[in-house]
């Protein structure tokens, strides 16, 4: 056996399929991005809800006071 060229697909290890903000698949990318994966990463909040980084950043920045998680309304904090 010389070379075994295998094929795999990657997926985000999130327990959901789609981003709650843009409704696009996690494995895809947010509406502003062209390329999935590293270019459009996911981010988890302290509440364990995951979103596209770009999506949640937009959301957080648009909130005047303290931002809340769009899913559970808890205060949004990036998971360490």
């Amino acid at each position, binding site marked *: *056996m010389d070379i*075994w060229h295998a094929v*795999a697909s*990657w997926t985000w290890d999130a327990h959901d399929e789609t981003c709650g903000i843009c409704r696009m698949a996690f*494995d895809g990318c947010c509406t502003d991005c062209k390329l999935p*994966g*590293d270019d459009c990463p996911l981010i988890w909040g302290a509440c364990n809800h995951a979103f596209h980084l770009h999506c949640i950043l937009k959301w957080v920045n648009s909130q005047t006071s303290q931002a809340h998680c769009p899913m559970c309304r808890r205060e949004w904090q990036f998971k360490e």
Partner: protein
Amino acid sequence: MTVDALSSVCNLGVLDSLSGASISEILESWNSFCLITETIVKGDDANLSTSYSKFQSDVCSLCKYGLRSLVEEHFLLSLQGMSEKHGAPNFWKNFDAYNNVPDSEMIDRNTQEDEVELLLCKALEEISLEKQYQEKCLLMLVNSLQLCQENNTSTEGHPLDMEKIFFSKYRLIVSSVLMTTMPRQFTEILHSYFKGRLEELSTIMVGDYDDDNELQDNNRPTNMDIDGTYDPKKTLENKLVRNIGMVVHNLKNLGFTSMTEDAYASTIFLLLQAKVYDLAGDDYRTSVLESIKGWIQAVPLQFLHALLDYLGDSMSDLSPKSTKSPLASTPSSCYQKSGKPSEGIIRWQLRLEYFAYETLQDLRIDKLFEIIVDYPDSAPAIEDLKQCLEYTGQHSKLVDSFISALKYRLLTAGASTNDILHQYVSTIKALRTIDPAGVFLEAVGEPIREYLRGRKDTIKCIVTMLTDGTGGNSNGPGTGDSLLEELNRDEENQERNSLDDDINTDDKQTWIDVQRWEPDPVEADPSKGSRYRRKVDVLGMIVGIIGSKDQLINEYRVMLAEKLLNKTDYDIDTEIRTLELLKIHFGESSMQKCEIMLNDLIDSKRTNTNVKATINQLSQTAAESREHGASFDILDATIISSNFWPPIQDDDVKIPEPVDQLLSDYAKRFHEIKTPRKLLWKKNLGTVKLELEFEDKTLQFTVTPIHASIIMQFQDQKSWTSKNLAAAIGVPVDTLQRRINFWISKGIVAESSSADSNDHVYTLVDDMADGGKSVTNNEVLVADDEAETSVASVEDQLKKEMAVYEKFIFGMLTNIGNMGLERIHNSLKIFCATNPVYDKSIQQLQSFLSGLVAEEKLELRDGTYSLKK
């Protein structure tokens, strides 16, 4: 004069006044006049001069009594009688020999041509002599008439006028006599005569022409030399022309003007046609138009020029009185103005050139199919055709004939889609040369498009042509290049256009566009906008076959996926290039997914090296992987973003333990590097390069993982039953049987039936003596049978998507009975407005329905679908 004669005859009073003496005088002179006329006309030269004075006095005395018209009539009548009795029969007798010879034979026999020529010359000479003599007689009469006119001092008309009238009367008589007695084959004799002469001339001329070219090529400008070489030829040529001129002249004098012209015109045309056929032939690689034109200048025009010159000269020489004045409108009068290229010559040239164009055009149109088959090479022929068509304007002929040729030869079940497409592309290119507006292309392309739409593999072929250098495997290299080229060309155009846009302001551009506007050709279909027609774009037309670019892109995506998944190195330069070109043409957004796919490959390469580097570092310390018997060196992975790839077939397969271990290690490492992402292996996909070691030889293979798994099971155990093997690999038995056939066909595994009839036993063939013969050593064999496609084909996808609508369709058909395709399509659009939304095209629906028909769920009759009972 006639009026006068008439009045004198009718005036009965005059009769009364005649005395007996005058009556006897009249009778006497009449009798003697008749006698002399007879002898004169019979043609005894000696009598002519002696009896002239007597004749004159007779005529005078008759005229005196106003019997002039009678005299004239009698004389002419006797001339006519003479030519009827002697001249014409004698003349035609010469050709009696050919009366019974069939035409074709006569033309065929070259030896006879000389004979004909001699005969014709002789006969013409004879009759001309006779005619000259008779003309002399006529002149005599005219002179005597004039004489008595002068005596009478009556001043009627100009003497020249009288002469002219007499001669034209006479000519009319002669020609009518000859015409009425003319034998049927005389025209053919004339034709064959001219043919022979012209051919002779043309060989001389061609020699001239060639010599001329040679001389020009050799750059020998010494006039002396040229004169020296030409002298004998020139004289020969002159002699020939003079001969012909003589014949033509004689014929003309006999009143055969139109027939003669017909004869030599048709001969020239025939010769020209033969020349065109000869030059054009079946060779499309060279342009023949120029050489034909050159030939026209060199041979027929030279001939005509010489002939007309000669005729002009000879006419003024031989018959100075009759047709010298340009007002005497014989049809050839315009030819007499010799010197510079006369009107006649120019007219002839135009005629000949038009004829040549038409002939060549017909020839080319007949062969257009073949010409287009080897299009890039046959460009000169196309160019010729274009010029011809510009002259003749018979585009519709081209369209009709080409369409029928296409239908007959190309659009048949026997032709492969690739060939049809290739021909289509060539057609587009070729016709674009002929007609940049693309109107005729439209007409010609329609049947092809229509036909291609009915073929299943059209899209696939198009995409293959677009992407591969070699379009399919039927025609080898060269077939598909054209489309890729087209992509390139398109790109260049695009760049140029964008450059233009930068330079030109909008106003300027509009103004230029307006100036460039030309009305559509007459043949254009007014129902179609001219905008649409402007741009003849091969890709656009190809896409037009399919109907929408989405379908094309989908197919491309599937093929791209297939290709990428089977790549073992990460070399995707050609794909990137193709994609860039496609992006230019189809727009960035529609190619987005394909771009992501390519990007995945690039990322995979990076990740792969990254993962392997870190794993190897680890393994150096732990030396763990060594224990498994396989190192990460052998593993490469392509990691895809599955959302953007076409649906991928997912069969589970158990791969050999060591590899499986490798894969999970790899996945773990990936997870560590790229948290929180993880890998899902598609274990049935990919390629494996294997080296099988036997006792005496080693064989190399490139196979799919499932094949590899199968063969690796034989490493430990030489013989497997099919059930056990299937279980070990984790695939159904029938899949196994299909896959193992590959190894059986290579002679590596042998199949034998076991005691259990459902079970087969596969044994590894150790001794390769017999089985391995067909396999060459170290040959890389790629397993490629139908079932291997790793990506779900477009049809499968469509089927999956359409399955939702199946029950709608069945429901409708149960209620309504039978429905046409369009009706089903429209109904689905109405009923499935909400979830699931029906968004398929009518073509997709059609292919789905035909699938159902094939499964015998539906029936298709007279274009309507109904449930199968």
